[in-house]
């Protein structure tokens, strides 16, 4: 039996994410072609650096996927900034226009998992923090008073130099165990993680239920929903 260079798998599975399937399938095919063209046994070709896939090969694999119309989802701000042609633009803030209201008629503009309980709910001005420029501005000039920072990053680095200056935080991602959750707890800055916001307007006055018990990370779906703290939009009369 001659040498077989292909990817062999008795129990294969398609990757969970299309980008992985596309890249890995393309790499397997290219590697097989290259080794087969050489013709030596696998053990001799597999570590031969002259046969390895090159940067140009990987650039072509990426280009082939982009040519299908696919655009990558960005995580880091710098990724979209440097290569906007390869990434989808960041999504805006959702506003269904169909927010429920509480018993006092205030719009419920979001909910989230409370990192730790404080004695009373917190009122302040919701201000979005989603760019390096804004952090830089507040690092230089100071964070405006009463800022409840609405952050779409559960990490601890984007807002690292100003985190301790926030009155409170609403984070639209992560879990209570995320780095931002850990740090806000250390700073004693009230924080909701994994927040879902709908119609939360930048610079609006809000009250956030930070007095609710800390979210139980092991709660089942029903209990997790019941323990969510609400973000209430305050009106002039509130």
């Amino acid at each position, binding site marked *: 039996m001659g040498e077989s260079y292909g990817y062999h798998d008795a129990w294969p599975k398609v*990757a969970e994410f299309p980008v*992985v399937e596309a890249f890995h399938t393309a*790499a397997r095919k290219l590697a097989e072609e290259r080794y087969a063209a050489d013709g030596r046994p696998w*053990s001799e070709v*597999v570590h031969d650096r002259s046969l390895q896939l090159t940067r140009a090969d990987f650039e072509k694999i990426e280009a082939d996927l982009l040519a299908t119309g696919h655009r990558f*989802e960005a995580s*880091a701000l710098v990724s979209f900034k440097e290569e906007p042609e390869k990434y989808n633009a960041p999504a805006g803030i959702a506003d269904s226009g169909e927010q429920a209201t509480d018993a006092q008629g205030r719009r419920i503009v979001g909910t989230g998992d409370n990192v730790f309980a404080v004695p009373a709910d917190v009122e302040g001005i919701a201000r979005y923090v989603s760019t390096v420029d804004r952090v830089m501005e507040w690092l230089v000039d100071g964070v405006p008073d009463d800022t409840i920072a609405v952050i779409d990053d559960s990490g601890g680095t984007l807002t690292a130099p100003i985190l301790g200056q926030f009155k409170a935080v609403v984070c639209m991602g992560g879990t209570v165990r995320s780095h931002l959750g850990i740090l806000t707890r250390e700073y004693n800055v009230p924080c909701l993680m994994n927040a879902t916001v709908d119609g939360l307007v930048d610079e609006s006055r809000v009250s956030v239920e930070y007095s609710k018990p800390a979210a139980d990370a092991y709660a089942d779906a029903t209990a997790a929903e019941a323990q969510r703290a609400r973000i209430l939009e305050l009106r002039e009369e509130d």
Partner: protein
Amino acid sequence: MPTDHTYREILTANQFGRKMGESFYWGCTTRTVQESKLFPVSAYIAGSYLNAFYRYPELLRRVIERTSPEEIGDRARQAGIPINTILTYVVQQFYAGGRQIMLDMGMLRPSDVLDDVLLVYDFVERVLTSFHRNHGHVIPQDANMKNAVHSAQQTERFEAEAIGVTPGDRLHAAFSKFMPAVSTYGFLSHCECRLSFFNHGPYKTEGGHQMLVRDAINLAENDLPWLDGIAAEIPYNNLTAAVIMKDTDFNIVDDFGSFEASPSYDNDNIVALGLYTSDLLSDGYIPVHMDSPEALAELLEDLAERFQRATGELWQLMAGWTRTQMLEAGLLVYSGVGREFAHIAGIYEQDDWWQVDDQVRRFYPLLNDEYGNAIVGELVGYLSLSTQQLSPHHVERFNGGRGEMWTPIPYSVLVDDDWTATVGDMSTGGSDLPPKTGLWQTTQGKLTLEELNRRAREFKPTGWDLRHYDDDTFRKAHPDDRRPFEAIGAMVESGA
């Protein structure tokens, strides 16, 4: 031709690989997903795995030529140098991650790089086993998420030296200000990852309290090139806080060095604390400004301000980096976890650990944010890559699926299956990051790299030859023998 490796070696490696994969799955799926708007985190993680795959075998071989894995584990436990569970544990995980990606891309087969796999797995298991010898396990997950690293005499020393605090007093307030400052700085300096922190314990203390030992490492000017200048005013590279808590049960202290407590950790429950520094040139843990509560409070207040200042300066530097620089910084922090082994062997070279191997740089076009998130998610969260799937009959330990994280070595290499030994020598490397130009802050002052390596090669802790008396079994059978205390250099003995 069959391999020269024994059946026993391959059985051991495969068992260890499975144990580590299961542990990593639990850790990665229950702790949190790392993300950042500043750094392309998952993309750099994927890159770091590949860098580990190409570089660790040669780098670890060099370490083993000078010192044994067991001695490294002993030094880490006895002297408090910044080698701990997670920094050792992830050496195997990151290497295995790189191998798995290569397997799934069809550029490697399970029977390839046999010597490399066995070397890396064996090295890590031996360091971990030695480091954890006091609790008799390899990793905390084996111990139902307890990580009691130290012997009785070491923890008694921490307890005896701890300074009492109450909420509202100056020391308590200073510590409450210090912890977030150093934590924020650590996350930033390590590009969003938690590798600068490590907790171990819990240890029972008087009054039914529990002690958690909290390490913060790589704080001053050190290997991280971006800390040159910015960290010049940080006088300690590693700090260890021994924190005694009332009404708190640390029910999980895991393989990542993170913890959960019941009720939740609350600074108001701290009843006593101590602060120490240590490194590979120190004779164990050195108390830091623990002469009085006021002296320690003053230091913590000062350090908090220094860390806040350094955080601001560092953030401004990093925010101006290109994506490639951010990718490489995180990648190198991750794949650099094994560098302390080279430090302790006195053979550390900056380019070994702070250059991305050219074999890895060719993959950059694939390392976009989406692929990064997807490949790391599949690899360590969903266990959904094709190469991770076993037969439809298979049931994974935690999720019941048929995926297992790390592909074992096939036993057919013991007969006549084709196999390869190694990926080969390290390639040249590079990075877009500014090079390291500064000195290294140590407990013996600021040193050049040449001097640091020389001292590391020559250094032997005072109690080193007595280290096997730093053992609870020996002490229990020899209650009047002083050698367990001499082994750790402890000046204070419990009850003395």
